[in-house]
């Protein structure tokens, strides 16, 4: 497994993926710099604004882009054929690519969080820094992408077009704008989870932080279904 990951790393590190992981944090950073800060709730405000931009749209989309990236170089010049004639299990290949995608989402989260904190510090926000809130936002957002990464990787493995995974994900991400406002659907919709997980709780809003229901149904359920789907597809893939 380690060698598969090393090999994946070698292949991905020289692509343009690096430019993509800074887009969303930069946009979020710009928004955070512009928003007025209401006294003591400064950090909460910053995380809400930055999180809305990042988690509502960009994070789910980036997951698909990363997934498409780790498959693109295999689709381009018969990479799958060579890869599958190596003494490696196909399931392991899927897992290695999946972990690589998660790694880039993690990096994306690190940069996003650092940017928000950086903006906050430079603007001299008053009040204690809410460590808990930021940690939960950081990890919650990351966890919420687990099923999305599995689904988009599945799509990216099956279809050779770079656009396929991204398109599927765009179609499923767009309804977010409506769904996050629905108390009944939102906790169950996998694409809404990054938003729900990353945004801090505001009064009695249902949005915000780990709800057991979301975690089990939308995240774990989605993860299991999509991951198994991807595994089956890569086993059956004729190259």
């Amino acid at each position, binding site marked *: 497994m380690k060698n*598969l990951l090393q090999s994946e790393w070698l292949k991905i590190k020289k692509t343009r993926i690096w430019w993509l992981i800074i887009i969303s944090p930069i946009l979020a950073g710009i928004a955070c710099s512009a928003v007025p800060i209401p006294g003591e709730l400064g950090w909460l405000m910053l995380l809400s604004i930055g999180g809305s931009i990042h988690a509502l749209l960009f994070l789910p989309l980036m997951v698909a882009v990363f997934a498409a990236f780790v498959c693109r170089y295999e689709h381009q*010049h018969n990479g799958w*054929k060579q*890869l599958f004639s190596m003494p490696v299990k196909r399931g392991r290949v899927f897992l290695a690519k999946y972990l690589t995608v998660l790694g880039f989402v993690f990096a994306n989260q690190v940069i996003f969080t650092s940017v928000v904190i950086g903006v906050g510090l430079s603007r001299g926000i008053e009040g204690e820094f809410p460590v808990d809130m930021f940690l939960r936002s950081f990890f919650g957002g990351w966890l919420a992408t687990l099923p999305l990464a599995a689904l988009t990787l599945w799509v990216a493995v099956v279809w050779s077009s770079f656009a396929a995974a991204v398109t599927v994900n765009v179609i499923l991400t767009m309804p977010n704008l409506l769904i996050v406002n629905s108390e009944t659907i939102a906790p169950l919709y996998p694409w809404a989870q990054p938003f729900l997980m990353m945004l801090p709780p505001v009064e009695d809003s249902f949005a915000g932080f780990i709800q057991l229901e979301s975690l089990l149904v939308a995240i774990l359920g989605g993860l299991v279904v999509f991951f198994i789907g991807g595994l089956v597809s890569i086993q059956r893939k004729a*190259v």
Partner: protein
Amino acid sequence: MNEIILQTNQLTKTFKKQKAVNAVDLKVYQGDIYGFLGPNGAGKTTTIRMLLGLMKPSGGDIKIFNQSLKNHQLEILKRMGSLVESPSYYEHLTGRENLEALRLLLQAPKARIDEVLNIVRLTQDADRAVKQYSLGMKQRLGIAASLLGNPELLILDEPTNGLDPSGIQEIRELIKTMPKKYGITVIISSHLLSEMEQMATRVGIISKGKLIYQDSIHRLKNKALPQVALRTGQVVKAKSILQSAGFEVGGDSTFVTLENVSDREVAKAVSLLVEQHIPVYRIEERSHSLEDIFLDLTKGGELHAPGTAS
């Protein structure tokens, strides 16, 4: 005879009811350069894909290194190298990085990369992006990749496709050295018999999914030697007379054909027949190029070349 290294038994692949590969029994011995021949679309690549586990057979089975491919795929793949159709590569990486990405999976020693680069003479270009490689260089990189794991069996699918004559020559020379220098058995597919003629030790010919010929290249070449055809009366009797006199006899209902005969032997055959009062109407020489035989074989889908009692 050497040990059998690869064997298929009634290997079949069906695509939507059409049999792309139909009950093929391949037999490859250790140390062979096995030329796997057939026109385009005959089922060569499909067969090779199945040999590499890239595609599951619809029927039949594959044994490599005396193990079933179905049950021991990873162990077998570890001892094999391959190049299927057009070369596979990651164009954003250098040649060396391409090999490294595969070396990690094969868990081969790091020094092996320089060795294989040297074998295919890419050492100088190893640190250039593959994007800038010519087709021939990409092909050589593919061969280098196939050698990375120190394979015992190498499967090359049309490795000279799209190369210029000097590139073809180079790859051919390289392949020829494999069994002797490195102890590697090679299966190489091609649609050109002339190419195989110069390196293969054994050939299998596939046409329309069926293996229609499998034997040593010498046997095939012998078919290309001129035959002498005798048009006689009482053909059946004539054949038996000549056969009992020790001639290699073939032919159809109107002709008796003799293989590998000198002038003196022809004279002897004719006098034998005449002595037995069998009329000889005509004596003619028939020659076939190897290419003729190949075309004849693959067109008809079965053996039509005269005197093919193999």
